[in-house]
């Protein structure tokens, strides 16, 4: 188990290193921040001075090594815009993002899983067909469309909820619902197919043949097995808690990580973009690690395979 965990950790570190390196190179190939921040008609001496101040005049590999060295010591550079440490800018936005993504996750799981189980247990019934229709509509609709439709209905026409901003709890409702809808739809479909797969297994029939009441067969034999594939998709959803709201935050002017990412990219604020990508990657990797551990916990076959 220790070897398993260590190999996973090493892999996680390599993944993060890869993301950081890739982001570093791509960002430096995609345009000169000096021109953007100083504006094109700034005097050439000023632009040159800016480049020198931020080390942009040095060869890219030197910049990279310097960056990597500092990153290892916990220094992710300073924002080129306001000179504050990039990592601080990122971390102070995190609570706002989690304030909408965490309730959205609860919505996805709280609605998606029971709906999927119900649909699977009543396969081909009217309720099953309705659930699946709603779910197709839910995950095929792009989030910006759903966001605008919700704003139109609840913000403009009915006037029940604020359409954008982050001044009160009520401002969070529409972003949460927008994020939660597609996720709940995906979760419902996934749970349903996982349940149907399990319900067709011989051990379900054997459990019934034992004389167990149907609800016990479902609770003790079907659900624990259906949980195994479902964990994969839950892992994705947990992984996207940090960076999964870029579009929704932009539409609703929600001051989270997503909006910071959009503005930092637009401004070529390299240090901030890199810090963001590092945090996002680290979170994704952590979520994946949790999924792997959850597999081991749920499925004894995985456990003995890792031994």
């Amino acid at each position, binding site marked *: 188990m220790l070897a398993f965990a260590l190999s996973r950790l090493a892999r996680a570190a390599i993944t993060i290193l890869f993301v950081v390196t890739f982001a570093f190179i791509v960002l430096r190939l995609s345009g000169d921040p000096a021109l953007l921040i100083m504006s094109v008609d700034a005097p050439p001496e000023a632009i040159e001075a800016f480049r020198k101040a931020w080390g942009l005049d040095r060869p890219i590999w030197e910049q990279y090594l310097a960056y990597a060295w500092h990153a290892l010591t916990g220094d992710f550079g300073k924002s080129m815009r306001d000179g504050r440490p990039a990592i601080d800018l990122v971390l102070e936005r995190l609570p706002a993002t989690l304030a909408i993504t965490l309730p959205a996750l609860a919505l996805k799981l709280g609605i998606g899983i029971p709906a999927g189980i119900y649909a699977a247990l009543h396969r081909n019934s009217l309720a099953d067909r309705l659930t699946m229709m709603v779910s197709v509509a839910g995950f095929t609709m792009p989030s910006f469309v759903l966001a605008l439709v919700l704003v139109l209905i609840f913000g403009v026409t009915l006037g029940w909820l604020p359409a954008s901003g982050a001044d009160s709890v009520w401002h969070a409702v529409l972003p949460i619902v927008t994020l939660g809808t597609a996720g709940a739809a995906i979760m419902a479909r996934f749970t349903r197919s996982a349940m149907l797969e399990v319900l067709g297994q*011989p*051990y379900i*029939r054997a459990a019934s*043949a034992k*004389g*167990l*009441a*149907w609800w016990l067969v479902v609770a003790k*034999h079907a659900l624990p097995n259906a949980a195994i594939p479902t964990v994969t998709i839950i892992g994705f959803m947990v992984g996207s808690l940090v960076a999964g709201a870029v579009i929704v935050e932009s539409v609703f002017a929600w001051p989270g990580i997503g909006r910071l990412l959009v503005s930092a990219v637009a401004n070529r604020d390299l240090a901030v973009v890199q810090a963001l990508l590092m945090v996002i990657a680290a979170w994704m990797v952590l979520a994946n690690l949790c999924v792997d551990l959850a597999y081991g916990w749920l499925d*004894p076959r995985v456990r003995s395979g890792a031994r």
Partner: protein
Amino acid sequence: MAAPLVSIRGLSVDFDDGRRAARAVDGVDADIAAGEAVGLVGESGSGKSVTWLAALGLLPNRARVSGEVRIGGMNLIGAERRVLEGVRGKRIAMIFQDPSSCLNPVHRIGRQVTEALRLHRGMDGRAAEAEALRLFDQVGIADAKRRLSDYPHQLSGGLNQRVMIAIALAGQPELLIADEPTTALDATIQAQILLLLSRIRRETGMAMVLISHDLGVVAENVDRVCVMYAGRIVEQAPGEALFDTPHHPYTQGLLAALPTLTGPRRRLAAIPGSVPEPWNLPVGCRFAPRCPAAEERCRHEAPPRRVIAPAHQAACHFDVAGQSVWPAQEAAE
């Protein structure tokens, strides 16, 4: 004969998927006496398993079941879920073909046995564990104590089938349906499991229905054999009578297809043609299209069940009196 333990009358099962209707079991009548061992033989798709899955209400909802399956005066067909749950495992237990996939992969096998003990005998904790150990001993699982905490994937197919049998015994059933219990196992393990089933039947006095596509498996382990073809029982007889004087051309064909250990080497005879599809069954005798003795009447009229000897019946228009209708086999060079 005293009143049978289980009595099946006119049992039919139809599957209708909306596009075509298929009749998997067609008017099956059978009695199982207490303590009796009955073999149910036939090719794949002849309705052997479906008959008993239907009796226990284990078929999917789209199956339409009619007829009667009585145990102790109670009709199981159309019975409430709770009634069926009270019979399953408690009065009639069933074990299946692929033991390794019949055990829940995420639960320890000990827990899967004690689950049945709690359900049927109200045992908990220590008592249940002690009884599970006793059952493991009874079904010949060595090192039972350690095995209780194993998962199904850590056990061989043969051991898993022993676990399944232990679970089936947990409810002390009056009848065990063994549905192809050895088909997924190696030949040597197969013999061990069949011996085990015979021994347990002697020890407990329970009745057993052994479902198999293999006449050889059935021959040595049962008192009486029912042969099924395309959803109908075509012949039933005590084991010896069936093997010595088979009356239905299908039974005769099956026996001709078996290799013998003694006697001259000969070519094994296959029955020409194949089993009719359940959505496209012939009218009249189901076997007529493949039967060398078939006449015009066979293609229109379903044959009645003819009593040949007190416990021997065959559903054929002709009385072939034990003479094979199949051409004699030439000896192989």
